[in-house]
């Protein structure tokens, strides 16, 4: 054996010894698009209860899936967590996930909030709703997402950029219901009705309604809930200026998006990872989600936070969630054509 081969073998043996040592300790590796402070506490609880170490990397969903794709079969990732179903769908299409069959997940999560083939599961829900200045708009002027394109709202609507994933998913849901052409017409109407060029985040839209720059805005429910419970008095005052309107209650229901998880195709710690997925829909984790981030629990039997309870119940769109992923790219292109910045 020549020197080169000797070196290679030594290195290889050391490495394999290392990797054996690694795989002996129970652990789960998570690639999370949900930011650390919104997921770490519940992961810590999981570690406490099971003794399984949880390793975490947070970044944007697309950066994480790119990383998983390039790492290939050697990826250390066990779970991919995202805050949007379109991204989970894309990960499935890219071949990064594997199906999970778990009776716990299937029993606890309603069928519409998980992939029909078991590639991903929802952990929490949020709705994208219309908020309005209740001193200037009466709820009976409001009806549907479609109505936002009506000329009567000219210069009165605030909404963030079309680069935002929540707007992309909302548009994708419109494409699923009405087709590309009709949705593009709608987007043009909406753009014509904007009070200002899209900018900032959802909280900024709510604040803009509160000070009168616009009369209504399209936002995710938990942003308003977050502002209502903010430490800053100014934010609370702004949030109290607006009310929630659930769109499309007479027909298909309000647009819903999820945060969820999928099992990596090459997950090195598959058992522990499924255990963690099941923990995410346990009573404790679901209650924590509901309280800490004001999201809707994915389970019907877990109560929502008081803030959310005050807005009452609503009818949710039953559209299969993978449709949001399927129509995402078409949605973005039509938003471009409609001039939605």
């Amino acid at each position: 054996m020549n020197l080169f081969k000797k070196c290679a073998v030594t290195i290889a043996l050391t490495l394999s010894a290392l990797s054996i040592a690694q795989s002996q300790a129970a652990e789960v590796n998570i690639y999370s698009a949900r930011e650390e402070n919104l997921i770490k506490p519940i992961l810590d609880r999981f570690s406490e209860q099971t003794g399984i170490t949880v390793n975490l990397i947070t970044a944007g969903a697309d950066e994480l899936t790119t990383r998983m794709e390039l790492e290939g079969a050697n990826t250390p990732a066990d779970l991919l967590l995202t805050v949007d179903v379109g991204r989970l769908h894309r990960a499935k299409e890219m071949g990064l996930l594997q199906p999970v069959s778990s009776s716990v997940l299937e029993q606890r999560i309603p069928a519409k909030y998980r992939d029909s083939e078991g590639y991903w599961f929802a952990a929490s829900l949020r709705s994208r709703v219309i908020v309005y200045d209740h001193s200037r708009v009466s709820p009976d002027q409001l009806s549907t997402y479609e109505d936002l394109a009506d000329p009567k709202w000219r210069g009165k609507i605030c909404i963030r950029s079309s680069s935002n994933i929540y707007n992309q998913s909302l548009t994708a849901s419109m494409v699923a219901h009405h087709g590309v052409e009709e949705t593009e017409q709608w987007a043009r109407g909406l753009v014509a009705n904007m009070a200002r060029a899209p900018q900032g985040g959802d909280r900024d839209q709510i604040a803009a309604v509160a000070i009168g720059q616009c009369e209504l805005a399209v936002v995710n429910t938990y942003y308003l809930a977050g502002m209502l419970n903010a430490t800053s008095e100014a934010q609370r005052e702004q949030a109290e200026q607006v009310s929630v309107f659930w769109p499309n209650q007479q027909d298909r229901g309000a647009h819903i998006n999820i945060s969820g998880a999928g099992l990596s195709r090459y997950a090195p710690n598959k058992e522990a990872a499924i255990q963690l997925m099941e923990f995410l829909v346990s009573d404790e984790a679901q209650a924590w989600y509901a309280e800490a981030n004001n999201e809707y629990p994915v389970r019907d039997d877990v109560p929502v936070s008081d803030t959310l309870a005050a807005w009452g119940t609503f009818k949710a769109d039953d559209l299969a969630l993978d449709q949001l992923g399927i129509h995402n790219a078409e949605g973005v292109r039509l938003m471009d054509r409609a001039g939605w910045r």
Partner: protein
Amino acid sequence: MTRQIVFLRKIREQSALISIIALCLLLSVPILTVVASVGSGSDGVWQHLSDTLLWTYIGQSLTLMLGVGVLVLILGVVPAWLVTMTRFPGSRILEWALVLPLAMPAYIIAYTYTGMLDVTGPVQAFIRDTFDLRFGDYWFPQIRSLSGAVTMLSLVLYPYVYLLSRMAFLEQSVCVLEVSRTLGAGPWRAFLRVAVPLARPAIIAGLALVLMETLADYGTVQYFGLSTFTTGIFRTWFGMGSSTAAAQLSALLMLFILVLVVTEQWSRNKAKYHHTSTKYSRLPQIRLQGGRLFLALLCCGLPVLLGFLIPFLQLAWWAWDTRDIVDFSAFSQLISNSLKLAGTAAVIALLLGLAISYAKRLQPGVPMRAAVRILSMGYAIPGTVIAVGVLIPFTWFDNTLDGWLQRQFDVSSGLLLSGTLVAVMFAYVVRFLPVSMNTLDAGLGKIKPSMDDVGRSMGLGAWQILRRVHIPMLRGSLLTASLLVFVDVLKELPATLILRPFNFNTLAIRTYELANQERLTEAAASALMIVLAGIIPVIIISLSISASRPGHDSRSANQ
């Protein structure tokens, strides 16, 4: 015998040169990877882009560069001249304080000013309450706009121009200025006609850094809702899922940068500026009074006030306001991670930058120049693009090695390099090496080639000349180069985010994640830590530059 030695020395120098070029190639891999992915088809996304947003991307990027370029020249060169050539109350403090905004990341100053000046912020609320107005009854500049972005970026980027032009003004020859004065030029005319043209290479080097940073900025333009190259790349890649079209956009961006880099080098190569003498007499410093004093205070004070003091105080206020809900227990880990990364990157970038700049001085041939040119582009490429450019070759290497080991020995190496701090560090070096190279190039350029010749005639080799002649003369540039990289890494976000290993966070990541959830006030504590960690190196740079001119440190001036 002697012939043999000469021959051996030649071989050694040649092999050193070849290894430098090999190093440059290695470091260019991420950039070339992006260029290489241009060839493949893009499913009509490119067509869609050129039908819809491409021209907006180009237009807004150009406008941004033009605006920032003009503003940083005003904010950088004028104060540099004033604090170097004149004396007025506070000028000693302003001398170093003018560099402070360098510690303020662009995205953080953007968050801060938006928090203050947006329609919902306290300033406009105060106007509405005081005058009993409603929104729309009064005019107020729109902070989230193209001109807002120009202002934000200029306020934190002008120090590059300030630093480099100040260095040039300090090192200028008094004789030249005196000659111009005896020829009847007033101080202002001497400034415009003599000092600025002489300092031009330094000013342009600073401007190039600023413009590259402007092109690579993502945080500010994204937050303001602008459509520039960087936001376009993200949107194409992530919104439409087309990494190919995103790579094509990146390649177009690189074309922009190439024009910039070539123009910069062309403008520098046309003339060479070396010190004519090694004698420095004290720079004449004019004492300002009256209206001129006021103007000077305004010119030098405003950049510090707007670029540092106001956002700093606002952050401090927010941090104090949220002290009960921010989790400070994780801070020591975040701070130590950030400092370690920044420190290591600074040392590596310094060593590599010195090796490459020196090799270029020794052998300014075509392959060397081409390699340096490619490397220089790293600074203008958005961090995310660099990160993916690092991920592709690293994972390829890891997976190939793993496959080979499995076939040969039936053992697995897994991912050896990707997902480690090595990958993170590689990305930093690719991204920030140009900062260190530019600074060292400027420093080396001022050392007369005759110094090398003298060394050579005394029988010193290239390495010995570097060690015994150049490095001592370059101390200021070496310090500046390493500290600039240090501060840049402290502020860096996207590459760290994508490439880092498990359970590894930095201050920049913490700040970004909170800001991304629109919790600006809670993000203030970690933002403040970034700024504080960056202040000390920034002050060191500034002081070392002031001390770089013999007879110009504060003690001797007071005697």
